C-alpha cells in the first residue's frame, strides 16, 4: 500500500490524466458547467467598479467605489440588510423550534398509520412552488374575498387590507416559512431521533420516567449536536433571501417593501428597473462577500465543535 502510494505520487500530472482519461472524462461536463456558470462569472464582478456601458461591456471605464458609495448612502442599504437578516433569523429560530417540537411529538405517537398520514400531509407544501403558495395566501388574506376577511365581515367587522399593512408581514412570512418547511425539517429530525439508542428509552421506561422527563433528559440533549450543526449551517446563509419566496409573495407591492424587500429582490429590481448593472453588481458583491465570510466562519465553528458535521 505504502509503496503503491509512493509510485503514484511520482507520476506527473499529464501521465495521471492520460492513465485515467476515461474516468476524468466522466467529470468533464460537470467541471465545464461549473466553470462557465461560477468561475467565468467571477471576472464579471469588476463591473461593480465601473460605469457600465453595454457597448464596451466588461471593459467599461472605471468609476472607483462610486456604485458602493451610492448604494450605502441610500436608505435602502440599511432597510434591505435589516430585512434579510431579521427575517432569516426569525425563520431560523422559530422554524427550528417548531420543527424539533414537531419531530418530538411525532416520535411520541405510537399509532404508525397516524404518523405516516400526517407526515405525508406535512411534506406536501414542500413540493409546491411559491407562485401557487402566493395564490393560496391571497385566498386566505385577500381584502375582497379572502377567508379571514369573509369571517371578519360576517362578524360585522371592518375588512383588513393585509396587502397594504406592512406591520403584519414579518409574522405572515414566518408562518408561511414554517408552513412550507417545518414538515420537511421535522422528518429530518425525526430520522435522527429514530436513530437514537433504544436502550436509553427502555431504561427510562423501567425507571418510570414520565414522557416529559424522557423528552427533556434523553431526546433533547441527544438532538443538540444535530440542531447546532444545522443551525450554524443556516447562519451562513442568513445574508441570502429566498428570491423565489419573496418575489412571488410580495411581487412589486410598494407598501410592503419597507418590511419585506430583501437583498436578492432588491438586486433584481435595481437591475431590471434602473438598467444599471454596475449598481446591481455592487449590491450583489456586498452580499456575496459578507455571505462568504458568514459561511466560512460558521463552518469553522462547526468544525471546531462538531468535526464530523463540517463541510470542509
Amino acid at each position: 500500500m505504502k509503496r503503491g502510494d509512493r509510485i503514484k505520487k511520482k507520476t506527473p500530472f499529464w501521465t495521471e490524466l492520460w492513465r485515467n482519461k476515461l474516468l476524468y472524462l466522466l467529470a468533464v461536463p460537470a467541471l465545464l458547467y461549473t466553470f462557465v456558470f461560477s468561475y467565468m462569472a467571477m471576472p464579471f464582478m469588476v463591473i461593480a467598479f465601473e460605469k457600465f456601458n453595454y457597448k464596451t461591456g466588461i471593459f467599461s471605464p472605471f468609476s472607483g467605489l462610486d456604485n458602493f458609495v451610492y448604494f450605502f448612502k441610500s436608505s435602502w442599504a440599511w432597510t434591505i440588510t435589516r430585512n434579510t437578516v431579521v427575517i432569516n433569523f426569525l425563520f431560523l429560530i422559530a422554524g427550528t423550534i417548531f420543527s424539533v417540537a414537531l419531530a418530538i411529538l411525532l416520535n411520541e405517537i405510537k399509532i404508525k398509520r397516524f404518523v405516516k398520514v400526517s407526515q405525508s400531509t406535512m411534506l406536501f407544501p414542500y413540493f409546491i412552488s411559491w407562485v401557487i403558495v402566493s395564490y393560496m395566501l391571497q385566498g386566505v388574506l385577500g381584502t375582497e374575498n379572502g377567508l379571514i376577511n369573509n369571517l371578519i365581515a360576517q362578524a360585522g367587522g371592518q375588512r383588513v387590507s393585509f396587502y397594504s399593512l406592512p406591520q403584519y408581514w414579518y409574522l405572515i412570512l414566518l408562518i408561511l416559512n414554517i408552513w412550507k418547511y417545518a414538515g420537511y425539517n421535522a422528518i429530518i429530525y425525526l430520522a435522527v431521533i429514530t436513530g437514537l439508542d433504544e436502550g436509553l428509552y427502555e431504561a427510562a421506561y423501567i425507571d418510570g420516567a414520565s414522557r416529559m422527563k424522557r423528552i427533556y433528559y434523553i431526546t433533547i440533549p441527544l438532538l443538540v449536536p444535530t440542531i447546532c450543526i444545522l443551525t450554524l449551517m443556516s447562519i451562513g446563509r442568513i445574508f441570502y433571501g429566498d428570491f423565489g419566496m419573496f418575489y412571488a409573495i410580495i411581487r412589486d407591492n410598494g407598501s410592503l417593501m419597507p418590511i419585506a424587500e430583501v437583498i436578492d429582490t432588491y438586486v433584481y429590481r435595481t437591475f431590471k428597473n434602473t438598467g444599471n448593472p454596475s449598481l446591481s453588481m455592487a449590491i450583489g458583491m456586498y452580499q456575496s462577500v459578507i455571505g462568504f465570510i458568514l459561511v466560512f466562519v460558521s463552518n469553522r465553528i462547526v468544525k471546531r465543535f462538531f468535526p464530523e458535521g463540517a463541510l470542509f
Partner: protein
Amino acid sequence: MDNTPAVRNRIDYGLADKIQQVFIYSFVAAFSLACLLPFILVIIVSLTAEKSITINGYSFFPKEWSTYAYELMFSPRSSVPRAYYVTTLATVTGTIAATLITFCAGYTLANKQCRYRNGMSLYFYITMVFSAGLVPWYMISKGIGAYDNIWALIVPSLMFSPFNMFLVRNFIHGIPDELSESARIDGAGEIKTAFSIYLPLCLPVIATVALFYAIGYWNNYFNAVMLVNDKDYYSLQMFLFKIQSEITQMSKMAQGAMRSNPPKESYKMATSVVTMGPIILLYPFLQKYFVKGMVVGAVKG
C-alpha cells in the same frame, strides 16, 4: 423479561399522560390539516362559479359550482397547453441531463483511482459558498445563447448542483471498493464499470437526485422571469405568475364570446391545480425517495 416492550403498557402514568397524549395528537393533526386545507381550498375555488366568488368570496362550501375555468383553460385560445408543453419538455430533458452529469461527476469523485479527486471536490465546493451574483449570471446565460428560447429554461442554474453530486459521491463511498477492483480484474473498462455496475447500485440515490432536479425544474420561475420575454417560452409557473395580465388580454380578445366576466379567480386556481397536477400524481413516489434522500443527505452530510 421485564425488558420487553409489553412492560410499557403495564405502567400507568395517570391522568397527566392522557392529557399530554390528547394534546400531542391534536397538535399534530391540526398542523397536518393546516398543510392540507389550502390545497382543498384551491381545488374547490377552481370549481366555483365566478359569480359565487364575487358575491361570497372564497369558500369551502360554494353556492354554485362550475367547470368553466377548466373549459377556458383548454380552449384553443388559451396559452396553458403551450406552457405545459414547454415546462414538460424542459423538465424531462433537464432532469435526464442533470442526473447524468451529476452521477458521472459523483462517480469520478468517489473513485480512489482518481488522484485529483480532493482538488476537484474543492473546485466544486468553492462554488457552493461563493457566488458572483445575479448580474454575471444573467450576462453569461445571455452570452451562451440561453435567452428567449427553451434553453433558457433548461441550462442556467438548474442543470447541475454540487450538493447533489456530493450526495451521489457519499453514497458511492458506502459501496465496498472491492467491487470496482474485481470489475477491473474481470476486464471491464471504466465506463462499463460506471454504467453497468455502479449505476444500478446507485438507483436509490439517483432517484432522489432526479427528483430534486425535477422539482427544481417544474417549480422554477426565476429563469423565465430573468431570461424569457417571448410568451411562447413562458414556463407554467411563469404563466401562472403573470396570469392577471393574461386574463385581461383574453377577455379583450373574446369579448362577446364570454358568458359573463372573465372568471378571474377560478381561472387562477384552476391553473394552479393543473400546475400541481403532476406533483400530486407522483406524490407517493416522491415522498418515498425524498424521505430516503433527505435522510442520506442531512444525516450523513
